[in-house]
C-alpha cells in the first residue's frame, strides 16, 4: 500500500460518506427544497414591490436604493441561515459518532484519526459551499433580472460569505472533538452571538465616535471573526452611496473592517482546524 495515496483516499471516502449521510437522512434535500422556497418567496415579493415602485414613478437612483435594501435583507437572511445550517449539520459530526459508538469500528481501520476529521470537514464544507452559492447566486440573479441591479465585487464578496460559513463549521467541528453534542451547539451559537453583538456595538460606537465601543467590537472580532466577514462582504457588494444611507440599521457598516481582519480570520480558521485534527488524535475514546 502506498501510504500517501491511501491518505487522500481515506479523506475522500469520509467526505463522500458525510455527504451520503446528509442525503440519506434527508438533510440535503430538505435544505435545498426550502432554499428554493426561500428564493421563490423572495422572487415573488421582489417582483410585486418593484412593480409598485415603478408605478409610483421613483427615479432610477431611488429604485436602485430599494433594490439594494431588499437584496441586503435577503443576503442577511441567507447569511444567518448559512450559520445555522453550518452548526446543525456538523454539531453531531464527531461527538455524535463517539456517543453512538459508531466511531469504534471506523477508527480501528488502518486510517489516521485526523483523516476522519478532515474528511468530514471537507464533506460539510462542500455542502455549505453549494448551499451558499445556490442561495446567494439565486438571490442576486433575481434582483439583477428584475431590476437590473448588479452587485459589485461578486467573487470577493461571495468568498467572504462562504468563509464565514466555513469558519462557523470549523468551530463546530473543533468543539465536537472535546464537547458533548449539546454543549458544542450552545458554544457555536454563543460564539456567533458574541461576534454578532460585538459587531453592532462596534458600528453604533463608530457612528457615535465612541472609541471604547469600537474597541469592544474589534476585540470580539478577534475572539470570533465571523460577523466581520459578513460586514466586509456587504461593503464589497454594495456601492458606497447605498451603504451610507443605512445609518445605524442592521446592515450599516460605519466602522470599516480592516483587511488585516480577513487575514486574521484565515489564520484563525486554519488554527481551529489544526486544533480539531490534533485534539481528536489525542482523545481517548
Amino acid at each position, binding site marked *: *500500500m502506498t501510504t500517501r495515496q*491511501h491518505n487522500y*483516499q*481515506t479523506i475522500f*471516502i469520509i467526505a463522500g*460518506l458525510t455527504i*451520503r*449521510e446528509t442525503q*440519506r*437522512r434527508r438533510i440535503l434535500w430538505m435544505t435545498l427544497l426550502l432554499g428554493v422556497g426561500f428564493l421563490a418567496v423572495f422572487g415573488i415579493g421582489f417582483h410585486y414591490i418593484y412593480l409598485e415602485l415603478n408605478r409610483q414613478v421613483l427615479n432610477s437612483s431611488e429604485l436602485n436604493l430599494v433594490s439594494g435594501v431588499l437584496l441586503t435583507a435577503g443576503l442577511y437572511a441567507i447569511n444567518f441561515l448559512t450559520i445555522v445550517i453550518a452548526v446543525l449539520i456538523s454539531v453531531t459530526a464527531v461527538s455524535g459518532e463517539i456517543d*453512538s*459508538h*459508531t466511531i*469504534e*469500528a*471506523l*477508527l*480501528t*481501520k*488502518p*486510517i*489516521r484519526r485526523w483523516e476522519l476529521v478532515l474528511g468530514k470537514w471537507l464533506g460539510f464544507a462542500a455542502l455549505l459551499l453549494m448551499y451558499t452559492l445556490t442561495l446567494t447566486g439565486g438571490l442576486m440573479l433575481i434582483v439583477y433580472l428584475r431590476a437590473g441591479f448588479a452587485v459589485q465585487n461578486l467573487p470577493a464578496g461571495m468568498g467572504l460569505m462562504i468563509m464565514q460559513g466555513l469558519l462557523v463549521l470549523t468551530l463546530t467541528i473543533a468543539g465536537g472533538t472535546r464537547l458533548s453534542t449539546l454543549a458544542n451547539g450552545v458554544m457555536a451559537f454563543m460564539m456567533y452571538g458574541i461576534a454578532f453583538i460585538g459587531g453592532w456595538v462596534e458600528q453604533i460606537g463608530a457612528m457615535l465616535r465612541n472609541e471604547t465601543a469600537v474597541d469592544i467590537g474589534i476585540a470580539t472580532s478577534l475572539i470570533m471573526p465571523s460577523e466581520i466577514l459578513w460586514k466586509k462582504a456587504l461593503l464589497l457588494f454594495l456601492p458606497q452611496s447605498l451603504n451610507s444611507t443605512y445609518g445605524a440599521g442592521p446592515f450599516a457598516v460605519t466602522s470599516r473592517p480592516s483587511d488585516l481582519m480577513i487575514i486574521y480570520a484565515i489564520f484563525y480558521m486554519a488554527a481551529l482546524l489544526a486544533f480539531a485534527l490534533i485534539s481528536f488524535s*489525542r482523545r*481517548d*475514546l
Partner: protein
Amino acid sequence: MIEDHLAIDARGLRKVFGKKTAVSDFTLQVKRGEIFGFLGPNGAGKTTSVKMLLGLTAPTAGTATLLERPLGSRQARTKIGFLPEHFRFHEWLTAAEFLDLHGRLYGMSKQRRTAVIPDLLALVNLADRADTKLQAFSKGMLQRIGLAQALLNDPELVFLDEPTSGLDPLGRRLVRDIINSLRSEGTTVFLNSHLLSEVEQTCDRVAFIREGVILQTASLADFVQDSIDVTLRVGSITPQLLAELAQFGNGVQMQEKNGRRIRLTLPHEDKLPDLVRWLTANGHNLYELSPQRLSLEERFLQIMEGRQPNNPTT
C-alpha cells in the same frame, strides 16, 4: 520472543482516568493462532484493555505490540479485525454498503471487495439482507453484520468483544462455528466475554482480570486438570478427621444430603492417591470417593473471590 511469534505482546499496560485506575497492569502474551479468552467481571477493565490494544485509548504507561508492530501501527491494523461491544454502525447504510465502506477503509481493491462481501454476508446468514438498511436490522442481525465487518480483510488477528451478547442460541452456534473455522485457518482470536460456557467451548487459553490486574493466565486444559473437587464417604466422620483432611486441600466441609459425606477441593489430582493412602493407613473405611472436575465457572468464581486452590497454605 524469537522462538514464538506473538500476535499480542502487552507489557505493563496501564490506564489511569483522573484518580481512577481502570487498568493497573495488563501484561499478556498471545501466540499466533491461539483462540484466547479474556475473562473478568463487569468493570474489571476488559473493555479499556481492548481499547488500549486497538489504539482507541492511549495507555498511561507500558508498551505492547500487535502482530509484532507497536501499538497504533496502521500496518498492523490492515490485518486486524474488530467487533466492538456495542456493535452500533451507520444505520442509514445498507448491509452491503456498510461492508463496502469498511472494506474501502481497509484499503481493499474494488475487485476484492466485490469478491468477498457476498461470501461474508452468506457466512453470517444475511445474504438475503444485502440491500436492507441497517436501521431495519435486529440486534442479532447487527451483531452478525458486525462480525462480517471484522472478517472483511481476512485478518490475522480478530478482537471480538462480547460477540454473542445480542444473539439467540442459533446465532451463538454460528459464532462458535466461525471461531472454529478461524482456528483452522490459523487466525488468532481474542475473545472478550463473560459467557464462560462459550469460552470453555472455544478457547485454548484464558486470562482472568480483576480490578485492572491480570490475575492468572492458563490454558483451559491446565485449568481442568489443576484443581479437583472430591466427595468422600467414610465409616465415621469425626471433627478430628475433618481437621486432618485440611492438609490435602481446602474447603473441607460436611455434606448431609443423601447420607453424610465430606467434600473438599484438592489443588491437583496428584493428591488423590495420597489421600486414599492416608485414609486407609489411618484406619478409615473408605466407601466412596468421587472426584469432580471444576467447571470454568467455578474456577472463575474462585479466582474472582480470591480463593486460590493452588496455594492451600492458609
